């Protein structure tokens, strides 16, 4: 047994290593092909990305990314493709902003109210897809994508003057939330770090704990591995589908909160979109693992930060987007390759062991096979 664990460890390290090497190689070739020096590019990125204000920027940005990745991963863990995190977080943030702009409670009450509204709206929106899947058998991929558009149109309808928004120059936005409900920040220099990092870390910890250390998490992973086996062992698959969609939506509700409570203080035409899709890439990249996704989110923040610096230094502006794509592909392919290799190796070892056993104990072939 001990030996097998060592193998497992080697395989676990091999995959990310292979991915990194492949990603660096491919991006270097691409940069070379555009006629630039890849080493210079990496140097610019590392130098600029490690500056103290860059560090703060990267952390702040990765908070939102991380929450989005978590929301996607909850679905992924049980083979549910929640493509709708994008619509869920936007509609959640929108209604949270509307409620937040209308209320003037003391901050310690209002912030939780805003967050709760967001989680509830996100959960309800995702719940629609969950409900349709369990009652009518509609694929969640289809419904969540369509609900993204519905969410966008709904927000667009309400985000007009005289409905739920006010006009400010060329931008429509919901009334600002009162100053008392601005989220706290850590007074680091030169820029403060968003206090929402605490929530992100907590949610990450809860995610890890619930999935790995509770009955519910076990059921969820069981359904993810094999629906029929889970069903046979008494897990209600329908209930699990609905619950995990709702949870995924609730987590998605948090995605817009760092922006709403710490940056924009309202929901306007300029509220960031598309983070839900970034979350899909990050969940893939982080292998749905609480820690892995955190690294992925930080990596994305780093690439965002250093991308425009590369542009200033004269590199093609698309290079960072290309890097992101290459990284996701490398990781997915590397893990699949290593998984297959591991499987074959395991099969060979088991086969060899069985052969040795049956050779040593030729009288009882059947027992040897069933062992």
């Amino acid at each position: 047994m001990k030996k097998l664990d060592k193998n497992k460890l080697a395989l676990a390290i091999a995959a990310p290593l292979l991915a990194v090497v492949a990603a660096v190689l491919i991006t270097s070739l691409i940069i070379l092909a555009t006629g630039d020096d890849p080493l210079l590019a990496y140097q610019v990125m590392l130098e600029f990305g490690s500056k103290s204000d860059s560090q703060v920027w990267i952390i702040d940005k990765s908070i939102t990314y991380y929450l989005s990745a978590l929301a996607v991963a909850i679905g992924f863990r049980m083979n549910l493709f929640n493509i709708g995190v994008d619509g869920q977080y936007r509609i959640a943030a929108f209604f949270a902003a509307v409620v937040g702009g209308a209320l003037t409670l003391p901050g310690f009450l209002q912030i939780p109210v805003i967050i709760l509204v967001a989680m509830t709206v996100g959960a309800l929106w995702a719940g629609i897809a969950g409900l349709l899947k369990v009652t009518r058998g509609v694929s969640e991929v289809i419904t969540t994508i369509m609900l993204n558009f519905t969410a966008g149109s709904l927000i667009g309808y309400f985000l007009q003057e005289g409905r739920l928004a006010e006009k400010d120059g060329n931008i429509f936005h919901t009334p600002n939330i009162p100053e008392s409900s601005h989220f706290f920040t850590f007074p680091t220099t030169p820029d403060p770090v968003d206090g929402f990092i605490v929530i992100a870390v907590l949610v990450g910890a809860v995610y890890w704990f619930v999935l790995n250390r509770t009955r519910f998490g076990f059921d969820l992973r069981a359904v993810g591995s094999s629906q029929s086996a889970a069903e046979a062992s008494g897990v209600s698959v329908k209930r699990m589908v609905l619950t995990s969609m709702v949870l995924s939506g609730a987590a998605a509700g948090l995605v817009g909160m760092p922006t709403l409570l710490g940056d924009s203080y309202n929901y306007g035409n300029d509220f960031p979109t598309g983070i839900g899709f970034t979350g899909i890439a990050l969940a893939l990249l982080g292998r749905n693992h609480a820690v892995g996704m955190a690294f992925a989110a930080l990596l994305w923040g780093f690439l965002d930060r250093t991308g425009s610096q590369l542009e200033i230094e004269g590199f093609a502006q698309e290079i960072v987007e290309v890097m992101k794509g290459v990284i996701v592909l490398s990781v997915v392919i590397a893990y699949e390759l290593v998984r297959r290799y591991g499987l074959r190796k395991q099969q060979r070892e088991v086969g060899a062991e069985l052969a040795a056993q049956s050779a040593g104990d030729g009288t009882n072939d059947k027992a040897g096979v069933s062992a």
Partner: protein
Amino acid sequence: MTAAPAEALPRVEGDVLLRRVPKLAAAISAAAALALTATACGESSTEANKDEEKGVGLAFDVGGRDDHSFNEAAARGADKAKKKLDVNVEMLTAGNNETEADREQRLTSLAQEGYNPVIGVGFSYGKSIEKVAKEFPDTTFGLVDERVKAKNVDSMIFSEHEGSYLAGVAAAKKTKSDKVGFIGGVNNALIQKFEAGFAQGVKDTDPKIKLTRQYLYPNNDKGFNDPAAAKEKAKGMLDRGVDVIYTAAGQSGAGSIEAINAKKGAWAIGVDSDQYKQPGLKEYKESILTSVVKNVDVAVFELIKSVEDGDPITGINEYTLKEDGVRLTTSGGFIDDIMPDIEKAKKKIASGEVKVSPTPKK
């Protein structure tokens, strides 16, 4: 770094969880504190560079320099400055799905590198310029399409609704089916100005004409960068007999123009740049009736020149129809026959006889 606590979690069994919770919290806060102290060290990028004169920094809106439209107009102004004033120009482009932080960073980087003036093309840069301008009081900032009150910002505002009114007059005169259309990229206040002016121009010219108004996206900037969507919308309108379509949608407009070109007798009205003259739209130019041009290039050039001359333009500067801040192009000569009507409408607006509303009537 955010994830360190998850790794540091003690491996607990379900039943001892309650006792472990304080430890868990401690682990999390410890890791968070660690992460935060880590961020506070090292030198900041703002300390690292010394300012030096670099030239003009231009930050584009989505679509980029070659959007055949709005960004391109700004780029033209900068190119002219490059030629005539011999200044260096650096151009950066916004991506889809940008956040405030991305825009702030782009402007900060440009100002930090020593570019002066730094110009944000598009109202999305409003908030970020307001913030960054405070941090770089010695740099002059230019902002197209939005008002920011700051000592070192030149806010360039254009009367799109007045220019669009003239487009409405032209559309009403040219339609044979008495059906005209408007396609907006994103349903925001700026594009509504185009819609409002166009609708009023059509109605004042001929109240019988039916106007179809559609937007590509309710509130996603992708609307300025999605020619395929504009093409579909235009096709839909053409199928319903609309024969003049005014598209205010940045780069997406190219898609609409392409669809209109495929139908004989239909006219496209372009926006922001003289789209008849755009090399990228050359094969469709016979369908481009006219374009509503905002003289972004003139405004941008004036700003750069003023900075070079040492007397930067600042404050809120309105470029109205009266002073040719917006106009209708005549390339191709397709509107030559109706020029008297357009001149008449223009005079009425300039004299104040006709007031063009910047918000559409619902």
